[in-house]
């Protein structure tokens, strides 16, 4: 079943073309990875799909319904959730209050046993009463994911979920994310090849706002063009 279908999406900021005629297609249950050098439009793609930006061109269907023109909160209510490239939690509130906030307007909130179980799985239970701003980056990253999971999204878009983490933490996050695949469909932007190679069922490559490749990770990561454009220019 097609979950996400973005067609011919184009986004310009003044003279800067951040996305040009990008097509993205994702099946339910399929993990889609997005790679591309810095500034290639990956975050912009997420911003467009989740209603934070209005593209000049294109159409986005989610679960069969058009998304463009809808507000971010409506898109969240439709079951499409996203995280941010730089971690974003309510740092003055406690972990517990952060979770409660995520549950406020969730259309299908996870029942409380489910919340407890998920928090336990993410290892956050001991930190429930700590101020979110006092958590480590790795804990904040997991809290971000927890706040999305209690809403039971159909699709979770993760923007560089291992950015800034140590290599041991990256390892642990990869394990968490592969378990996460059983809970919801994942769309993941990553810089680190390792993450994409281990997690993604399919990869798309963005370069300067254009999709230059789309296919299984093994094939894409050995593609000469990708290696030139991407591995040649970025430390991966």
């Amino acid at each position, binding site marked *: 079943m097609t979950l996400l279908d973005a067609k011919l999406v184009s986004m310009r900021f003044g003279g800067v073309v951040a996305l040009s005629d990008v097509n993205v297609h994702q099946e339910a249950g399929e993990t889609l990875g997005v790679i591309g050098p810095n500034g290639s439009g990956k975050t912009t793609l997420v911003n467009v799909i989740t209603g934070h930006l209005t593209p000049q061109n294109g159409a986005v269907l989610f679960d069969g319904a058009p998304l463009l023109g809808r507000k971010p909160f409506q898109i969240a209510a439709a079951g499409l959730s996203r995280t*941010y490239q730089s971690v974003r939690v309510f740092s003055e509130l406690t972990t517990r209050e952060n979770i409660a906030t995520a549950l406020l307007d*969730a259309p299908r909130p996870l029942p409380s046993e489910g919340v407890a179980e998920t928090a336990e799985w993410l290892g956050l239970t001991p930190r429930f009463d700590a101020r979110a701003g006092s958590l480590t*980056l790795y804990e904040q990253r997991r809290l971000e994911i927890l706040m999305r999971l209690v809403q039971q999204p159909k699709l979770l878009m993760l923007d560089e979920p291992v950015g800034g983490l140590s290599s041991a933490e990256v390892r642990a996050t990869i394990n968490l994310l592969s378990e996460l695949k059983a809970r919801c469909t994942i769309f993941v932007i990553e810089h680190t090849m390792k993450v994409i190679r281990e997690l993604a069922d399919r990869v798309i490559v963005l370069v300067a706002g254009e999709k230059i490749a789309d296919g299984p990770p093994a094939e894409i990561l050995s593609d000469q063009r990708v290696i030139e454009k991407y591995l040649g220019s970025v430390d991966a």
Partner: protein
Amino acid sequence: MNVLTSRWLPHAIFAFAAFAMPLVFSGNRYFAFIVGITLLSVLWATGMNLLYGYTGLMPLMFAGIAGISAYVTIGLSAAGWSFWLAMLVGSIAASLVGIVLGLPSLRLRGFYFTLCSLVIQSVITLAFVYFVNLTNGDVGISHIPLPELPGGGQLTGTSYELVLAALTVIGVVVLTLLVESGFGHRLIAIREDDGLAETLGINVTRQRLAAFFIASLFASIGGALYAPYVGFVSPRSFDVLVSLNIWLMVAFGGRGTIWGPVVGAVILAPLPFLLQDYYMIKDVVYGLLIIGVIVLLPAGIVGGWKRKAAAGEPAPDVAQKTAPAR
């Protein structure tokens, strides 16, 4: 039962004090008047707290909204309406204006919102001066008739103060209920990070406008009752300095807490009366207070005390904190 009593105990004490004070001072009109003005100030500060404390916006047009309600109520009463009906219509009208004035809050943040609210307040004040046939301009309106009572007679003296006490207590209880409800939690989320709140499915626009409507209701009910109580209004009664004084009560007491603004109003509202003999230095004292709050007490009296209490507990592995806030 135990939980219930301890939760509402401060409210009960406050209600007791609010009703007792007018009775205690019923023999002395001057002191009773100070009590009445203080109660009104508590109501206003509580309303502004919903905006400044719980949505994080500093609105300087608060007094202007109170003024719109006061003038509408006076006008309708003069046209033969019952005071209470006039007050209802005036308050709702002014609160709808409050929503309109809240629209900039959807686009502007921090200083820009505050400046915008200051501009709006100045426009309202100019309008009060300009539309002489409605407001009697700078001269003001005096001999405002007292509200009539259902059984005949007028609301006056101690009974007026008791009505103010009742409304103030209701105001504080309503704010408590709101803040502890989902609405309050949504506002706090929006205050902390509106983008993230929206991403989590919260309708930021609707919550903000609702906050403006409710806070304006506090302002305008206070404004409608203020006019007959004092017996005189002019554009100066509702100018930017009044807004600033209400803000000061909230900031001084501690924004974002239920009791901070109440404490702030109880301390600051009687101040001009106490300083009456030193009338000249009133402005200087207020100026020093404003600077003192900003420099020394950014969280206010109650907020500062809360933070100290929290700092007493050991924060688990603060040293590990590596994450940038955003």
